[in-house]
């Protein structure tokens, strides 16, 4: 039983407990929960033999499909959760601690899910937990961003649910296998759409840079790791070799490059970089050969490490300075040398410099495109690797730690803080940096985890090293030559969230105009009706009296005009002359008589 403890359980238990403690004790509980989940993964047999299933209401729910693919992702998810817990030790609010653990636990649950229903449940739990992680940012902007995040991911969840319902209706099975999803038809397409929304595929990509930077400096480290990589995992599992993914991946790479190169907000830049790197993984999934799939897995593993590291250092900088824009940052090297070192390791890993984990992972995907004889895709990926150095590899360390914008608000020496990140944060960054370098130098333990049987990949070919060195050196020369051009400027770049942000506002105004219009019209009509009724009750009797008398004009002869005036006056003042009262009484009596008879 102990051997098949679901690794998500310690995280959920931690999420339930950690909120009851203070910042330090709660942080320790979080860390212990994350480490327990690492232990639970290490205790899994890893041969796919483990399973934990329930059969309620005719469904077959499989919670623990622990095959090699799932275990590889479980390793990096639990390890990165541990590193993130260490990094944020003692600095998270109770709500954020609980939300981040629940978020990591849901991602693990999704990774181990053996059927679509279990996957869907953890998928939605993950989105919900992420909303609370963003909300823990505690600002007005984070509330708005969490709301938009929830809307986008609910839409993605609905796509997934509709897809799995259609699939189950057609095939009678809710199993989560590539064979079932290769069936075609609207069901698998909807499932794919749900997956791609979480992978931040263009045009459903803007939710990522919109939401992650609005979370707290610690929350973003968790956010950067799980949602998109869970999507990569399910795409590897469900849609290997699906050609459309190559195009989607290339589009994401280009989109990430262009937007990251323009972006001024440090963590928004890193968010665009996530989309850019997930694009590489999607290309690998789309090619679908064992080598390409292994490349996508290993790249996802390494990407979580170095992107967590970069979000950690960005979070440290933001926490220390209170500033988030590259135009406002700069010159922090003397104040935060250790954070700078961590940033450089992360940035160089991102740029796939030889000796870092990026170099032993990204070239696997690129080599797979070459082996699949996709010359254009190969050239594009090579070019994009050079671009990576330009938008983040050199730009982030340089603009944050050295090159201050002339005339930036923080340009005076007094404004630069002289404090390094707290010890726990430094420990988290240090371990992550060591992992990046360690895998970069000795990747074989990671390669041993690769799920698919493929010809051995040799990363350290002299020719490959010189080629990458040449590519990056000339990209570096470009950077050095054109730093003034590459310097960020204040302002934003419109993204696809424009459609739902201004669209939402337009809808709001439209609804306001329509309902407001109906409201005004109804008020107007009611007022007119009341006025008309008032006129009727005020003048109606006189007019009726005058009309009645006028009808009898020929009979009344010369007294007619006088009688009519008298009747009008009587109706106006309600004091009818005796004759009229008598006539009315008589008339009434006649009426009663008629009714009685």
């Amino acid at each position, binding site marked *: 039983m102990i051997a098949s403890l679901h690794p998500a359980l310690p995280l959920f238990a931690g999420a339930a407990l950690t909120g009851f403690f203070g910042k330090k004790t709660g942080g320790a509980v979080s860390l212990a929960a994350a480490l327990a989940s690492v232990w639970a993964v290490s205790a899994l047999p890893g041969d796919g033999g483990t399973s934990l299933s329930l059969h309620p209401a005719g469904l077959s729910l499989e919670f623990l499909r622990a095959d090699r693919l799932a275990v590889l992702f479980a390793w990096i998810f639990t390890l990165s959760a541990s590193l993130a817990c260490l990094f944020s030790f003692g600095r998270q609010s109770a709500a954020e601690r609980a939300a981040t653990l629940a978020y990591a636990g849901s991602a693990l649950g999704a990774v181990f899910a053996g059927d679509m229903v279990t996957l869907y449940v953890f998928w939605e739990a993950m989105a919900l937990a992420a909303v609370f992680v963003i909300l823990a940012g505690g600002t007005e902007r984070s509330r708005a961003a969490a709301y938009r995040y929830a809307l986008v991911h609910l839409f993605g969840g609905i796509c997934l649910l509709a897809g799995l319902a259609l699939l189950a209706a057609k095939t009678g099975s809710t199993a989560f296998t590539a064979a079932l999803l290769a069936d075609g038809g609207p069901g698998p397409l909807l499932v794919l759409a749900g997956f791609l929304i979480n992978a931040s595929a263009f045009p459903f990509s803007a939710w990522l840079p919109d939401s992650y930077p609005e979370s707290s400096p610690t929350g973003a480290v968790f956010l950067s790791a799980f949602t998109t990589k869970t999507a990569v995992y399910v795409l590897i599992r469900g849609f290997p070799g699906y050609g459309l993914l190559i195009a989607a991946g290339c589009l994401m790479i280009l989109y990430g490059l262009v937007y990251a190169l323009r972006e001024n907000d440090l963590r928004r830049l890193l968010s665009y970089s996530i989309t850019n790197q997930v694009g590489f993984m999607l290309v690998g999934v789309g090619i679908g050969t064992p080598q390409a799939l292994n490349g996508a897995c290993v790249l996802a593993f390494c990407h979580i490490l170095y992107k967590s590291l970069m979000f950690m250092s960005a979070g440290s900088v933001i926490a220390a300075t209170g500033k988030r824009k590259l135009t406002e940052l700069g010159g922090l090297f003397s104040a935060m040398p250790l954070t700078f070192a961590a940033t450089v390791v992360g940035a160089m890993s991102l740029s796939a410099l030889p000796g870092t984990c990026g170099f032993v992972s990204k070239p696997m995907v690129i080599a797979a495109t070459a082996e699949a004889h996709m010359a254009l895709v190969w050239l594009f990926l*090579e070019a994009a690797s050079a671009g990576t150095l330009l938008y983040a590899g*050199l730009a982030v360390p340089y603009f944050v730690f*050295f090159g201050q914008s002339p005339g930036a608000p923080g340009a005076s020496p007094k404004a630069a803080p002289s404090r390094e990140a707290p010890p726990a944060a430094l420990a988290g960054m240090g371990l992550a940096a060591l992992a990046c370098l360690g895998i970069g130098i000795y990747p074989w333990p990671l390669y041993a985890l690769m799920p698919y049987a493929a010809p051995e990949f040799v990363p350290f070919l002299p*020719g490959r090293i010189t*080629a990458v*060195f040449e590519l*990056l050196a000339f990209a570096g020369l470009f950077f050095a030559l054109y730093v003034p051009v590459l310097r960020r400027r204040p302002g934003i770049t419109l993204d696809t969230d424009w459609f739902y942000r201004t669209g939402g506002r337009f809808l709001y105004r439209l609804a306001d105009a329509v309902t407001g219009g109906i409201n005004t019209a109804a008020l107007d009509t009611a007022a007119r009706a009341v006025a008309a009724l008032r006129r009727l009750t005020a003048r109606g009797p006189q007019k009726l009296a005058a009309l009645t008398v006028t009808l009898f004009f020929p009979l009344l002869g010369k007294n007619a005009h006088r009688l009519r005036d008298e009747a009008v006056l009587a109706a106006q003042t309600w004091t009818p002359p005796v004759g009229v009262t008598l006539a009315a009484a008589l008339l009434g009596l006649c009426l009663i008589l008629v009714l009685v008879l």
Partner: protein
Amino acid sequence: MKNGTTSQKGQTGQTGKTGQTGQTGQTGHAGPAMAKGRLLALRAAAGLCLASLGASLLAHGPAHFGFDGFFGFHALVGFLACAALVLVTGLAGVFLGRGEEFYDR
């Protein structure tokens, strides 16, 4: 592997040298110090480029297609890709760039 570590040190060093710009720039005499820092950075980058070209003479990258075998192919790709990317980004900025408070209005 040897090349790998060299280039890593080189990149970090380059950033460091470039960085002196900002550091000295803070103390007031920004103009000449910045120019000096930039010159150093440019020299370092050019040196790295020459070193990389020299290294590729010793061990040339694997040629997968017909067009990628010639000397300096990766150098060309690296430089031209950056130039193309900056152009595309500039174009995107013309159409999609907005003020900081665009969504707050």
